[in-house]
């Protein structure tokens, strides 16, 4: 089995500028613009996700990450641009998307076990009460085992720790066999160890279940070892491409519209605001590598 990283590396190596979307693209976001209350909250977002890719959607609060995820889920209309999921519209592609929302709030006294929530991932949108079925139970068990949640499968979701709840939510999202898994800040509120475990789990399921992962986070560092590509968002705009080509001072300065430095400390990346002095935004960048994706129009973080 080819790892997602290997697959991604191969795809970016052999298609520097060829036209036409590759048929393996699970998600294509093409010039997405969103206006809310007269304000443009997303501007010309362009990127795509290949099959099995692991992509980080990085940005601070208010950068537009959640809005973008809502667009992909078909919950937010676009003012301009187009989003497709495996070649389908967002409405038609909904079945191919698994979604893990930011945080579920369920009291510990609510009678919903981990396995119930995973089962609802299979058929929660169907009418009628679920009839006891050996096939359904086996699918739920299999999925619980895949996320190492079998030990607390019978416990109430509300009584589980943050990391345990994330595992259950991932199983809930994966059991319907999606091709794209969207996760909204799954690492927020997790301690470092749980966060590492969740990342390792996501990397594993992305390979084993052939699912592309788009994970939003405000800190890219925990994701650096597993990310194939990055979509870096600031103020409703995005730069995307291979991590090392996006997370650079010049690229991010253009995105932010002010000088920022990218500092590498022992493998950790820090993005720090500059002093404002010597603000130099490269006018004619030679960073063609910061394309959206091979095969797409050149993405420009700066609209001008």
């Amino acid at each position, binding site marked *: 089995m080819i790892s997602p990283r290997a697959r991604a590396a191969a795809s970016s190596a052999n298609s520097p500028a060829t036209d036409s979307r590759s048929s393996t693209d699970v998600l294509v976001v093409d010039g997405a613009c969103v206006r809310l209350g007269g304000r443009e909250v997303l501007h010309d977002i362009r990127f795509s996700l290949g099959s099995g890719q692991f992509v980080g959607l990085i940005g601070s609060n208010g950068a537009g990450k959640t809005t973008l995820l809502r667009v992909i889920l078909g919950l937010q209309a676009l003012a301009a641009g187009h989003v497709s999921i495996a070649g389908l519209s967002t409405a038609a592609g909904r079945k191919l*998307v698994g979604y893990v929302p930011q945080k579920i709030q369920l009291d510990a006294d*609510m*009678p*919903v076990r981990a396995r119930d929530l995973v089962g609802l991932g299979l058929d929660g949108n*169907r*009418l009628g009460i679920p009839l006891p079925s050996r096939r359904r139970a086996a699918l739920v068990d299999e999925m619980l085992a895949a996320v190492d949640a079998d030990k607390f499968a*019978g416990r109430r979701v509300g009584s589980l720790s943050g990391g345990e709840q994330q595992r259950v939510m991932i199983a809930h999202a994966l059991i319907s066999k999606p091709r794209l898994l969207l996760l909204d800040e799954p690492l927020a509120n997790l301690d470092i160890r749980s966060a590492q475990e969740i990342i390792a789990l996501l990397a594993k399921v992305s390979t084993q279940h052939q699912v592309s992962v788009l994970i939003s986070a405000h800190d890219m560092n925990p994701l650096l070892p597993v990310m194939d590509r990055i979509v870096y968002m600031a103020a409703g705009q995005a730069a995307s491409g291979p991590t090392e080509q996006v997370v650079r001072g010049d690229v991010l300065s253009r995105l932010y519209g002010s000088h920022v430095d990218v500092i590498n400390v022992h493998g950790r990346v820090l993005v720090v605001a500059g002093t404002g002095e010597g603000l130099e935004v490269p006018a004619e960048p030679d960073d063609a590598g910061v394309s959206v994706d091979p095969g797409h129009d050149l993405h420009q973080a700066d609209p001008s």
Partner: protein
Amino acid sequence: MSDPLGLIFAPGFFESSPVQAALIAGGIAALVSGVVGAFTVLRGQSYAGHALADISVTGGSASFLIGISPLWGFAGTGVFAAGVMDMIGVRKPRGRDLATGIVRGAGLGLAALFLYWDATTTNTSGVAITVLFGSPFTISNGVIPLVAALSIVALGIVLVGYRPLLLSSVNSDLAVARGIPVRLVGLACLIAIALAVALSALTIGTILSTALLVGPAATALRLTSRPGWATALAGLIAVAATWLGIVLAYDSFTWPPKHHGWPVSFFVVALIFAGYLLAQLAGRDPGRRQER
């Protein structure tokens, strides 16, 4: 001790036609309240249920003025109020309290007027007592088809919509992402709650009908972690409390102080509360427990 059952069931209990009507209508109403109550508690809508019960006082008191069964009044105003609450915005937590409070205040204002007219212009004595505290032994057999019809609607909403309802109760984002129309599901659930409190208002009155809605559900979810079992168990507890309450109320006709009988609503609510306390004391922390 020739007849041990005779100690529990006073002579003539099962032959009495008012008792039969009370057992049938009360049992059905309790089943609906318990089942719908499980979702009321799961969705954190106990206050909405409480408000819907208060508002049904309006319809109940008005129905005596125009001479129809109070159940029409209870259900009619309850469903109407559910619609208004949904319109104002019962979905957002803050809007929810606001919507509920506004509708409840308006309804109770009208209820005050109608109860005043009931007391001054009709010759039915005790309308206020009947509306507020219920009067199961005055339920006529003619109402039972209506009780059954409303129950089918309320139970139907919960059973047909079971999975979308459960998923949207856990997290509305998850439900939305699966294409579930959460607003419609929420409105349907609110209508089911309105019907449940209307039905139990008939037996134990509008003031206490939320006890039958919330109490059995609260007890059930102490006892099991399975959503399906909790729903069924809540229904069973509600039916058991109601039937036992009717038996005790019938027995109480020979009790002090005045040999007039104690109200059914007292017994039902007391039994539900006792059951809840027992479940609290007996159950280990259900959150820590594994249930396969």
